[in-house]
């Protein structure tokens, strides 16, 4: 029983990372119909921004050594600026393009960012120790929980509450939801399209920065493709949850986290290396029965 509860906490914290990533992706998909394949690379950039840019094998902390009150805003700012730059240079000229074209463009952006990281930081993975204290365990009865997992869950909940307050209570949040519902109509009613899209990119940047910092604290290493698996699980979470639905993205993220953790815990040891294959197979099975996802959005079917 204790074992199961511990697995459940693992699932919650992993699912939290997937859910935050899926939110960043889902937010842009709702407004722009853009599947941002470069989102994972924003996560990598958040982690790489901690160290001094160089091709040396050992990483030297740069922003990572700052006081946490400076560290968080500076990393967030860097990622937000990068997210806005990708919008300005690649996606804004493609506002009228089809969804497949946008997806390919984001794939190109992803390739450019990954190879940019390679050029600046070199190709070898680097070890990095951020907030080592967070990896200690806290004892609750028989249960031993890594502090970092608690932090991850708390941060996930805080960001989600913050985002939903923003979307429901503030002027720009309401505009953003209107744009996601019907972009052209929202523009006719005075919503500034590019401004709202910019805010969406900035928020997805903040979410990516949070995921990047949490993930690098846990994994302790940097590589130029570190964000790709996270983003891929998040894409799958967005599809499972129901494309275009933010609650769906969150539910999908936690569902994927749950499936992956339970497979890791209960698969026979020699099959564990194929964990992701089993996870994706389960996802495809779910989609065969519910092709619209677990929580379908209302406005995904095109009007003719």
């Amino acid at each position, binding site marked *: 029983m204790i074992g199961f509860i511990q697995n459940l906490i693992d699932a919650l914290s992993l699912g939290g990372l997937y859910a935050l990533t899926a939110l960043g992706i889902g937010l842009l998909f709702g407004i722009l119909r853009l599947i941002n394949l470069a989102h994972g690379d924003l996560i990598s950039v958040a982690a790489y921004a901690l160290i001094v840019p160089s091709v040396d094998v050992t990483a030297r902390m740069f922003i990572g050594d700052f006081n946490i009150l400076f560290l968080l805003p500076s990393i967030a700012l860097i990622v937000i600026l990068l997210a806005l730059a990708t919008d300005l240079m690649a996606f804004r000229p493609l506002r009228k393009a089809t*969804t497949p074209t*946008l*997806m390919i463009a984001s794939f190109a952006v992803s390739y450019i960012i990954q190879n940019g990281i390679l050029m600046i930081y070199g190709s070898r993975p680097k070890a990095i120790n951020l907030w080592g204290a967070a990896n200690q365990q806290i004892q609750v009865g028989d249960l031993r929980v890594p502090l970092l997992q608690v932090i991850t869950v708390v941060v996930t909940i805080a960001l989600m509450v913050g985002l939903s307050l923003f979307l429901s209570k503030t002027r720009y949040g309401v505009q953003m939801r209107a744009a996601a519902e019907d972009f052209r109509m929202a523009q006719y009613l005075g919503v500034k399209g590019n401004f709202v899209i910019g805010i969406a990119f900035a928020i997805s940047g903040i979410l990516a920065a949070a995921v990047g910092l949490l993930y690098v604290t846990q994994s302790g290493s940097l590589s130029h493709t570190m964000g790709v698996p996270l983003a891929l699980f998040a894409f799958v979470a967005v599809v499972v949850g129901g494309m275009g639905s933010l609650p769906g993205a969150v539910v999908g993220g936690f569902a994927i986290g749950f499936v992956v953790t339970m497979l890791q815990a209960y698969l026979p040891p020699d099959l564990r290396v*194929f964990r992701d294959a089993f996870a994706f197979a389960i996802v495809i099975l779910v989609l065969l029965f519910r092709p619209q996802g677990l929580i379908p959005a209302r406005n995904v079917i095109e009007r003719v």
Partner: protein
Amino acid sequence: MDRILSNIRTLQTPVLLIVLLAIVSGLASLTGSDAMATTIAEMMIRVVVVVGLYVFIGNSGIISFGHISFMCIGAYAAAWMTAAPTFKQIMLGGLPAWLQTEQYPFLVAMAFAAVLPAIVGLALGGAITRLGGIACSIATFAFLMITNSVYANWDSVTAGVSSIIGIPTLVGPWVAWVFAGVAILAAWFYQISRHGLMLRATRDDPVAAQASGINLVKARLGAFVLSAALVGLGGGLYAQFLGILTVDPFYLGLTFITLAMLVVGGMSSLTGAVIGVIGVTIIVELLRMFERGSMGPITLPPGSQELGLGILMALILVLRPTGLSGGRELKLFGRSRPAAPAAPEAAQAAPAE
């Protein structure tokens, strides 16, 4: 007479493309350098792969990020058939006996390299072509990661992270050219067939096509299986070109380069697929020369080749979304082409909502 003329009109595009490839290959072999022969052989193999990719992406309008998996499956299929039995018995104990103890001829291996991916494509496609276009693309991305992790970890049949060696290297520029021709003809005959036209109709207007009685899932599945077979064939050629096989090349980098070739040439025509391979190969080779510093005073830092390719692809998408070919097919005479549809300008320019 009329019949001959119409046959010429129908077949001119694939024949012109095959001749074009022969001219490029012939010009390159004039230099007589081994490096150039390697480049050309690799280019021809990529023609097979990109034409295979085009059969699904170009005709259905759905982007696939997973086709390099089929290339991987095809490459390993060819390696299982042709690698030395002594190596297979020591390193690949998980293979069935008929593969472990025998060594099959080249053409049999190529057939297997096309059939095995087609079977996998049928199983996968049966599930994912039911999803909407975008969800289907994401599922293909997941498939890429699954294949990569399975082939990297299934030690008893793929030798895991170490490599399969001793594959006979039978593929040079001209052998690869023959297969490129086969792929081009297969793609062309599919495209002008009833099934190809139905699929193109679903691409240009899914609602109207379904209202006219076209089965969307079936149309997509047919193209998916054919394109899996062609890409797998490209993988088999690649294995017998390299002579040594690991899982590493069949991942994001190759996925990007092949997609870039298709986008640069123009996704919605066969001519675009072929021209894209030639154009991107030339650009990549030029950038490589600049990186090596063999182009005079200007030396670019390592990595500029990848960055350059990424930026080129983004520029093409913004400035000329229909690619170099503009979505048209290469032809010498006959403006109207009754058998194949016009360039889908309307579909490209349609707003996103």
